[in-house]
């Protein structure tokens, strides 16, 4: 590079052309990252990896477990719990679809018609979450009680007859049926659908909708051709934030269901906490579930084309 002659060389110390400044190797980010990442590695990644190993062990809690490459655990994990996998998949899929169907109009209304009430309405979506979700879930015991007004209306409208024929309710009850389980799940996860939907709808310039109607779109076509495509990030985010916790949830199945609404989560808890030799099979189910969820989520993200969710 240049060593330009300094006109006032007498006054300043003349030094050779400074070498190109090298970008300094910076340790700061690693110091900042280390504690948190270490925590996640030790208390999240390591246990998951350990359970992969545990899933091919045999033994019981009294004698200890040995790594015997007992792949049959996976056979049990998959074949013995088919009903539970089916229930988990069915309930969580149904919950996700219903949450989108109910959450979209609410998010749309708040974003476009909320006006000065926007933040109050969003607070109303979040505020219930400040009461423990278990108490709120159990409140459905009261709402859906056999003598309660909800069941009374459903019964006299002959809705219960229909749901009973489809196997969602039994014996004139709503509580302790698959319908109650899905109702509880939709109730619990709806705010998680509304939040990302609202965020992406709120970003849409309302003038785009006016432009749509100016260019010969009906209200529905405007929604279909303009609003929906622009709100896709919210739909994708909402789907994931609902489906991921829903697939592992067993609170609703336990509190609002019956012995015939068993889901995978209950079985894992049961195998880990209550059966002396359940640890390997429980681990195997965990691995199956984890891998299954990840594959589903990843392929969904890829298909939806939004990989910068985090």
């Amino acid at each position, binding site marked *: 590079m240049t*060593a330009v002659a300094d006109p006032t060389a007498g006054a300043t110390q003349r030094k050779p052309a400074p070498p190109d400044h090298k970008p300094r190797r910076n340790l700061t980010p690693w110091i900042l990252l280390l504690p948190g990442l270490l925590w996640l590695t030790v208390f999240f990644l390591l246990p998951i990896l350990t359970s992969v190993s545990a899933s091919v062990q045999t033994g019981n809690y009294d004698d200890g477990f040995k790594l015997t490459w007992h792949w049959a655990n996976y056979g049990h994990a998959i074949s013995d719990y088919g009903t539970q996998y089916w229930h988990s998949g069915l309930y969580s899929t149904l919950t996700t679809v219903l949450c989108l169907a109910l959450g979209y109009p609410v998010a749309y209304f708040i974003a476009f018609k909320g006006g000065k009430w926007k933040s109050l309405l969003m607070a109303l979506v979040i505020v219930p979450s400040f009461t423990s979700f278990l108490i709120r879930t159990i409140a459905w015991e009261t709402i859906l009680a056999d003598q309660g007004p909800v069941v009374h209306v459903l019964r006299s409208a002959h809705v219960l007859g229909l749901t009973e024929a489809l196997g969602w309710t039994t014996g004139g009850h709503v509580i302790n049926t698959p319908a109650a389980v899905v109702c509880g799940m939709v109730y619990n996860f709806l705010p998680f659908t509304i939040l990302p939907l609202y965020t992406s709808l709120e970003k849409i310039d309302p003038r785009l909708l006016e432009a749509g109607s100016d260019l010969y779109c009906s209200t529905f076509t405007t929604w279909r051709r303009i609003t929906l495509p622009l709100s896709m990030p919210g739909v994708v985010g909402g789907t994931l934030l609902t489906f991921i916790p829903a697939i592992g949830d067993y609170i609703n199945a336990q509190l609002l269901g019956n012995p015939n609404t068993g889901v995978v989560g209950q079985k894992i808890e049961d195998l880990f906490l209550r059966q002396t030799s359940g640890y390997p099979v429980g681990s195997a189910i965990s691995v199956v579930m984890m891998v299954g969820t990840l594959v589903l989520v990843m392929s969904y993200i890829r298909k939806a084309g939004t990989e910068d969710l985090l």
Partner: protein
Amino acid sequence: MSSNDVLGRIEGGDLRLVGLTKRFGAFTAVDNLDLTIPQGSFFALLGASGCGKTTTLRMVSGLEDPTAGQIFLGDAEVTDTKPYRRPVNTVFQNYALFPHLDIFENVAFGLRRRGFKSVRPQVEEMLELVELGHLAKRKPNQLSGGQQQRIALARALINQPQVLLLDEPLGALDLKLRRQMQIELKRIQTEVGLTFVHVTHDQEEAMTMADTIAVMNQGRIEQLGSPAELYENPSTTFVANFLGQSNLIPGVVEGVDGGVVTVRAHGRALTLKADRARATSGAVILGVRPEKVQIAGSEDEVPSGFNCLTGTVVDTSFIGVSTQYLVKLASGEEISVFEQNTGRAIQRPGNEVAVYWDPSQGFGLDGTQDIEAGAVLDEEGAA
């Protein structure tokens, strides 16, 4: 004479850049720049976006490390001095007022960091200078764009820096406010007598305010001089096109005689003064500003000794104070003419006309350059 005050400011210090270079990977943003900015001057770095003017500014402020080269303030080298130790302050493009602090605290920020105990008199004085004393308790987001701009200026000026850097300071303002602020800035600079280095892509803004303008292109300084000098005697086609408009006519030098250069172009002998010609042999480009060109119904009306070309009017725009013509020559080239509204008859498109100008008003450029340089960039920069 040079003596340091408390802050390390040096009396009698020019800002000097020596061989300053900045590369981002393979891209050279600033290329071996040598520049001296005298103390107390209002200096403008003018160029299109991406020409390296902002990078230069950031290296002076210390927010960017140069790849090579040195920066001097007076006799002291500050190349490796941290930004918070340099007696240099910046007015940022988007003002960068701290949203969590009120106006008073924004202006007091620099003084407080330097450990001043009582800041009230200075801050109040500075707020008076920018005529916003009544807004001291407001938060930045409660101010209009023009007010924010003045606060940003006050926040930098209060530190009495050796050099004040202004990074497109008026870019976010509307036209009327921009004009007003241009005058305001010039007034303040005269009042405080500090060195102002002003980065802009707006040639009019640079010409209104600056004593000296450096036109930058591709990391280098294309030309440096007073606004009048740059306008009347551009040294390259880039400057001729970027700073205002120019009619550029390629030709070949026929001879030089007694301070007059004769150029053959469009089958005619055109002349210009030798001291305004950058090249006096071979291929040259003869340039003349549109407002220096006059228009006549026929060649007979052209006074003798004037350069003259003939063509057809293809476009006439009447804009009140003047009329702009576009005249197509036989070769297909177009000459633009700005005629003051002095009541002369307006030439309609289709009219055969003669265009002519005083030879002393023309300038000559080296003919080997790209004749379009700077013309397209200007539009991008202004966008």
